């Protein structure tokens, strides 16, 4: 599979705090990667590092050129999407404009994205008047519309009710089927089992385990921190 992003001994420091320590990993096209770990383990920082929102303090991050020699296109879906005080349509148009989508292609992309997430009927509604689940679907439409190689999702269902959670999960699954590479952080291990084919366990900014999903949940020989995490035990006990 084509390599999209590579980290080589990448570390991130925020002042004196070491958020990530010597992370090495390779992300390939079509993978569905889940980042798991306790709060503060570095999941969000790793997502931001892979996406390019932050730079490694040491080590190396490399985006491998894709079609026409350009770096992979990425989209980021946050736990609480930030939508401008504009209509659904204008929020989507803005995302397309920022992503550099040619003006002639924007209307088609916009319609396709709305159809994909089922928000066609709400296109002229103020984006901020939508429910939490609808807002997250709009955020997914915004991501889908730019037709990214990689979609980064930071706990995308953490603040949703069960129904909205199922809807969003179904959309994420569709993204995967569309061939988009998914990198997702989650506290929901059931969701990780359903959506991911590879799991990374982070602990205190270190990558403890990088394993296929099936092995992650069945292998009794994983490091002790990971076994404790899977059993739901608190690490400081």
């Amino acid at each position, binding site marked *: 599979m084509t390599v999209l992003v590579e980290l080589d001994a990448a570390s991130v420091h925020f002042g004196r705090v070491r958020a990530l320590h010597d992370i090495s990993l390779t992300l390939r096209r079509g993978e569905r990667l889940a980042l798991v770990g306790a709060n503060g383990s570095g999941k969000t920082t790793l997502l931001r590092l892979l996406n390019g929102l932050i730079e490694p303090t040491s080590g190396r991050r490399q985006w491998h050129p894709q079609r026409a020699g350009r770096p992979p296109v990425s989209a980021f879906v*946050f736990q609480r999407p930030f939508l401008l005080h504009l209509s659904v349509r204008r929020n989507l148009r803005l995302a397309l404009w920022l*992503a550099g989508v040619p003006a002639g292609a924007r209307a088609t992309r916009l319609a396709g994205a709305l159809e994909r997430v089922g928000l066609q009927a709400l296109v002229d509604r103020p984006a901020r008047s939508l429910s939490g689940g609808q807002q997250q679907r709009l955020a997914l439409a915004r991501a889908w519309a730019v037709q990214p190689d990689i979609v*980064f999702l930071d706990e995308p269902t953490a603040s949703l009710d069960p129904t909205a959670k199922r809807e969003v999960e179904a959309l994420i699954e569709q993204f995967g089927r569309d061939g988009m590479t998914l990198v997702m952080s989650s506290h929901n291990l059931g969701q990780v089992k359903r959506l991911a084919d590879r799991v990374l366990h982070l602990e205190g900014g270190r990558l403890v385990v990088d394993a296929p999903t099936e092995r992650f949940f069945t292998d009794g020989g994983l490091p002790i921190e990971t076994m404790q995490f899977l059993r739901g035990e608190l690490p400081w006990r």
Partner: protein
Amino acid sequence: MNAFTDSLGLAARLITQADANLWRIVGLSLQVSGSACAIGALAGLALGAWLAVARFAGRSLLIAGVNTLLALPSVVVGLIVYLLLSRSGPLGSWGILFTPQAMVIAQSILVVPLIAALARELVVEALREGGDQLQAMGARPMLSAALLLVHERRGVLTVMLTAFGRAVAEVGAVMIVGGNIDGVTRVMTTAIALETSKGDLPLALALGLVLLGVVAMINGVVGLTQRRPLAATGGLG
């Protein structure tokens, strides 16, 4: 107490009898302060947005400087503009001292720090919520700041009202650079100052009431527009 009731009656008569002189003064006040706010908005919003996102040595000092200028006495501004525009001043060749243009320049200088400081606060606050997400969508810092000003347009409108209030209510600068020439540069505040110095307190107070009424009316109109749903306004296609 009589002075107040006399003033109220006089103010009502001036308005209901559509006193031409009064309306000329009111019109010039609105024109000068409105123009100053428009010019101040261009400079102040850009400066505020830039200060919110720019990172350079001395930025904190510049922010402190702008915040200090919030207390800039209008007479000092008037004096500086007077020195610049007087015959022997560097801009004396413009020949605009004691004209409404000079008053616009003085009031613009007065409102720029106010608009910049408040706009910066608005953008900084909005960046906390959505800065990362706009960056992830591809917006560069200054573009993010501009988008956030659109997002916070109600707040921007309040900033502009505050600036207009500061401009229309100041007397020192317009008195110095305008000269309070009847029919040419006389505005509400300089007219009030003149009538007070002449001892015609009821007329001065009546003019003050008219000034308050005009500002209240503008606030009311803006307030009504702010009740509309936000996504229905704004300029993005």
